[in-house]
Each structure stands twice: as C-alpha cells, then as structure tokens.
C-alpha cells in the first residue's frame, strides 16, 4: 500500500480557506473533482457529513480524517488540506485541527480503503511526520515528506 499512489500534489490544499468543518470538507471535495473520480460531489459530502454525525473524525494531535464509503466515487479518493490557523472539528481531545485528510471509497474497494487508513494512522502516530506535514512549503514538498516516511 503506497499512500502516494492516491494522494497527489494536485489534491493537496496547503492553506485551507474554510472557517469550519463543513466548509473544509466541501473545499476538499472540490479539489478532487478534476480527478474525474467523484461522480456526485453533493452526495459524497452528504455521506462524509453523515459519518461525522456518528462522532468526530478529529482524532487528536491536530489531525482529522473525515471519511466514508459511497457510490458517488470510483475507487479510493484522497485529498489533504492544511489549516494554518486551525479549525474547530469537535475533536476528541478538544484541540483545533490543522491537518485534514478527506477520504472516500466506492464500497467495492473497501480493502484498499482500510489498508490506506491503517497505514496513514501509523504514520500520523509519528510526531515528526506531523510536524513535517505542518511545515512543508508546497504540495510537492508535502508529497516528498510522505514518500520519505513511507519508506522508513
């Protein structure tokens, strides 16, 4: 499982404009449209927000991973957004969120999706990885950070 097969520089927003959770999710969903893999953006967002209502995907350490399976996407889609000032994501630890990974998968690709999430989760446990993601100065630099940590 190579995360960089799915998360590409064009799907990364280094300075999210959104001021709240829902706007951030909408902003990130829009980034994925040129991929041609999102068939119905509104339905995709609806599934993501329904999942958020089960409990926030703000998992602590200033990270959120909103995610959902939906027929509105083909395969696995991943976008990343960085909020410099931080967003209220109703995180479990109460802190604001700076790093947001938006994931959607077609239900037929659950296996890939679960592996992606598990691999990402392991990387995000690494403080240095989170700090390098926070300070990367471009989307290309961010992908290099991901590649470096994937190999380690």
């Amino acid at each position, binding site marked *: *499982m*190579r995360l960089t097969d799915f998360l590409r520089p064009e799907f990364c927003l280094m300075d999210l404009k959104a001021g709240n959770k829902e706007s951030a999710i909408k902003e990130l969903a829009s980034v994925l449209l040129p991929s041609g893999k999102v068939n119905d953006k509104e339905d995709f967002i609806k599934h993501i927000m329904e999942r958020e209502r*089960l409990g926030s995907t703000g998992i602590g350490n200033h990270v959120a991973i909103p995610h959902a399976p939906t027929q509105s996407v083909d395969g696995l889609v991943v976008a990343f957004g960085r909020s410099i000032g931080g967003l209220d994501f109703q995180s479990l630890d109460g802190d604001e969120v700076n790093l947001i990974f938006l994931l959607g998968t077609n*239900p037929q690709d*659950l296996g890939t999706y679960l*592996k992606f999430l598990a691999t990402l989760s392991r990387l995000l446990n690494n403080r240095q990885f989170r700090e390098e993601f926070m300070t990367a100065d471009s989307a290309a630099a961010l992908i290099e950070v991901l590649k470096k940590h994937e190999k380690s």
Partner: protein
Amino acid sequence: MIKNVLVSVSGSPNSLTATKYAICLAKVMQTKLFVVYVIDSKVLSELLKSRIFVEAEARAYERDLEQQGKVFLERIKKMADSRGVDCETFLLRGSVSEEVINKINEVGADILVMGEMKELTSRSAVFYDEGERIFRKSPCSVVMVKNQAMVENLYKELV
C-alpha cells in the same frame, strides 16, 4: 503425493487470477481445492483503537466485508464446479495471515497459491503486509501467480 491445494483470496483482481491458476493446478493434479477468504478484523480493531472508526461503523464495515466475501466465494465455487474441481470454501475473520496459516495446517494443504504481491514500500511493511507474512510463514510450498494473460489462457483451455 500432493493431495490438497489451498488458495488465499481477498477479492482483488490478483486473487482472482490466483484462483484460476489454483483451479488449473487442482484439476491437473486431481487434488481438492480449499479457498480461504479472511475478513480482516485485525485492521478494523486497529482503526477502532486509533479512534478513526466508531463501533457502529466498524461493525458495518465488517458486515460489508462479510457480504463481499460470501459473494466472491460463491463465484469461485461455481468456477471450480464448472471445471470439475472438488472445492471447499472458508469465510473466516481475524488476522489474515494467522487464519490462512491455521487453515493450511488444519486441512494439510501441500501447496499454497497466492496472488502476485506488490513491491514493498517500506521496511516496516515487512511487519504489516499480510501477504508478506503468509509468504514467509507458510508451512507448505508457496506458488505466487504471475502473468495474468497466461493464466487466463490456461483457465480457458481447462475443460
């Protein structure tokens, strides 16, 4: 004497190719074919523990994976029947590598057939990749199936 062939499947295109090859092997060697699909509840537990999933969500994924596994195994059973191969399927849950190894021991498989594995992306992947673990820990000989086009032809010619 080779009596049993076991194939580990995940529902991926590679595992379908491996299954076709395993059916060919079982037919030619006149052996029984065991097919194992494991619902990866280990990864679901890991995602629950890391708080990426909530309980209800993890249970829903587990049900979906179970349904997908059933459909895939039924498809394989029909494929084996169509080629006159005696086939038994198992839908298991747990750690994929542990369940496959346990089943190899339980049925006394002589050959394990696996789909082609992707290149390892990191040193740590050796510890986390379930296919890699099965490959290294298998108590019997392992056949890793490559060349999809060749396998498709073999399978088509098998009557």
